[in-house]
């Protein structure tokens, strides 16, 4: 039998769980320590925000909220690697990527607080809003990538999807068309081991999720998703390839969901505490902090001061959210179409009248 094609899936890691460098070839961006510190600071902000959002939900001031606890390295690597005019299509918990792009904490809170204005966020107007129907955003990214390619713009579309989402048709369709049309698409599978209660092993018989890219003829790589440097390196490489017309990439970021699925979930029902405890050993903040400390680029004092500052920053955002009044009742009509059709105008008038007791 002759062999007509061979494939390898490589695994990329720079920092071990203690933050020690395990490779020699440190990528250029990582030599810019100030930048690394800035990224780390955003990761910390993210974690402070996340804890606060969960607390808000618990006290009835927010609806269901999807935590990003444990995904920080994967998420901020995406945000920091993209250019502003690239386009991002996320699921629902990738705030770290979005904060980098100008989305504000208050936007996130508005969204989970049941107000559409959250998705009219402060980030780039060409970034997609949160996307609940799993994996459907991947095709929006592919469509964006196609628009960029057709218009000959050197822009890249990035999408994220979960381990669960990598089973959904839309993900496979998106990477397939990216391969068929040679689109500038970077698809990041954030494999946090769980899709609500369903473990990674129940999603597919494939050894890695990265290898899904083989089916589409894309480049693919598996990365330690808790290793900021590895994630950023993989993204830089993939985005550069895409931007230069060399095609798309599938990146599997191996991480762990340290939180419940959302605040509506209770993960103790289906996964052992020991697994979570063990996953905390590999969490991303500790690792990059240790690395920065080892370079004397970050101290305990800076850590304490920054955390306190994050608390204030987040509080200000929370207040801004809490102070935002609900939209008036007519807001539910005004964006159904660009122009209000006559029969909808009648319904709108009725709703306003009802609001005023009519």
């Amino acid at each position, binding site marked *: 039998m002759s062999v007509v094609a061979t494939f390898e899936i490589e695994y990329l890691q720079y920092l071990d769980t203690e933050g020690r460098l395990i490779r020699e070839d440190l990528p250029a961006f990582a030599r810019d320590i100030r930048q690394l510190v800035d990224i780390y600071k955003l990761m910390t902000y993210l974690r402070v925000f996340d804890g606060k959002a969960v607390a808000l939900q618990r006290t009835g001031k927010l609806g*269901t909220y999807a935590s990003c606890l444990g995904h920080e390295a994967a998420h901020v690597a995406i945000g920091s690697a993209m250019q502003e005019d690239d386009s991002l299509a996320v699921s629902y918990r990738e705030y770290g990527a979005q904060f980098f792009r100008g989305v504000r904490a208050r936007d996130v809170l508005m969204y989970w607080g049941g107000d559409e204005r959250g998705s009219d966020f402060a980030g780039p107007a060409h970034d997609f809003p949160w996307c*609940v129907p799993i994996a459907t955003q991947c095709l929006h990214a592919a469509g964006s990538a196609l628009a960029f390619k057709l218009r000959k713009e050197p822009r890249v579309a990035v999408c994220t999807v*979960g381990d669960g989402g990598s089973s*959904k048709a839309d993900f496979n369709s998106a990477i397939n068309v990216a391969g068929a049309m040679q689109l500038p698409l970077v698809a990041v599978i954030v494999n946090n081991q769980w899709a609500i209660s369903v473990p990674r092993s*129940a999603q597919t018989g494939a050894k890695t999720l990265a290898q899904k890219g083989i089916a589409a003829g894309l480049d693919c790589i598996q990365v330690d998703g808790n290793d900021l440097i590895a994630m950023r390196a993989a993204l830089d490489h993939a985005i550069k390839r895409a931007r230069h017309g060399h095609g798309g990439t599938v990146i599997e970021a191996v991480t762990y969901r340290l939180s419940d699925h959302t605040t509506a979930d209770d993960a103790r029902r289906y996964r052992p505490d020991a697994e979570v405890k063990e996953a905390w050993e590999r969490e991303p903040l500790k690792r990059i902090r240790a690395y920065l400390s080892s370079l004397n680029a970050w101290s305990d004092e800076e850590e304490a001061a920054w955390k306190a500052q994050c608390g204030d920053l987040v509080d200000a955002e929370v207040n801004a959210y809490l102070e935002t009044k609900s939209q008036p009742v007519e807001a539910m009509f005004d964006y159904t179409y660009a122009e209000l059709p006559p029969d909808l105008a009648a319904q709108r008038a009725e*709703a306003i009248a009802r609001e005023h007791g009519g």
Partner: protein
Amino acid sequence: MAQITLIEAVTQALAWEMKHDSSVLVLGEDVGVNGGVFRATQGLLQQFGEGRVLDTPLDETTIAGLTVGLAAQGMKPVAEAQFEGFIYAMLEQIICHAARLRNRTRGRMSVPAVFRAPWGGGIRAPEHHSEANEALFTNVPGLRVVLPSSPARAYGLLLAAIRDPDPVIFFEPKRIYRQYKEEVPDDGEALPLDVCFVLRDGTDVTLVTWGAQVKETLEAAEALAADGISAEVIDVATLKPLDFDTIAESVAKTGRCVIVHEAPRTAGFGAEIAARLAEHSMYDLLAPVERVTGYDTHIPLFRLEMKYLPGVDKIVAAAKRTLAAG
């Protein structure tokens, strides 16, 4: 005999039928160890094992297609869409195959399956967790569409749906999953799949509804009674095929009809009922038919969603309009 909620009635029906028919199995996302995000399948994995309760990969196309294949090979799958807003990727398999396989093969193959999903708004849920999209299914030949609104009807209709030899879309109004309890004997007694339920007798006006709005409609009937107006309340529950006779008889008596549903008005299933009245009951009608429905907009996120849903005030006002009219 225990008092149970609507969602417990769903679980009870599933457990009864799985116990008495080994070809019944449950599949979907998080239906196994987690027992479903609303706990509809709670305990079933423990009771019946992994061969009867299957967590699938996260892909509704997969769930629907597997269901067709399983059913065609003699199983009775009960598939779950985690929310009604995630059922869209099932539609090709449901419309092209579940609904057609019997017809296509002249009865050689069929799809005795149930597609369950929590349905409707009002629980302050995120986007796509609040739709009332039953109208997607009611124009499709070969399907049954069922939407119970009490623990007893959930139990009896789900048993009937599983036993029915044809595919059934079974929507569960999640807003009233735990609204109240009632005694539901676990006796395996199914309810008929093709009659409307008259929940309250009345003589002045007929209120026709289904799903969670049954609650508001009954409250509206109370409020009307306080004003001396006698409202008959019909829970359609089995939308397709439609038992129009029960509605027509009631309207023959009252001469007035208000149709209440939370889906958008235009081309909602209420249109079919109004249309049949226009065709068959015109001489009985003393006043124009009224529809009290969701607006022709997307159900808003939860800060505004209660302003979207019909409510007692609107139902009462509509009923009074019909009385003023004729």
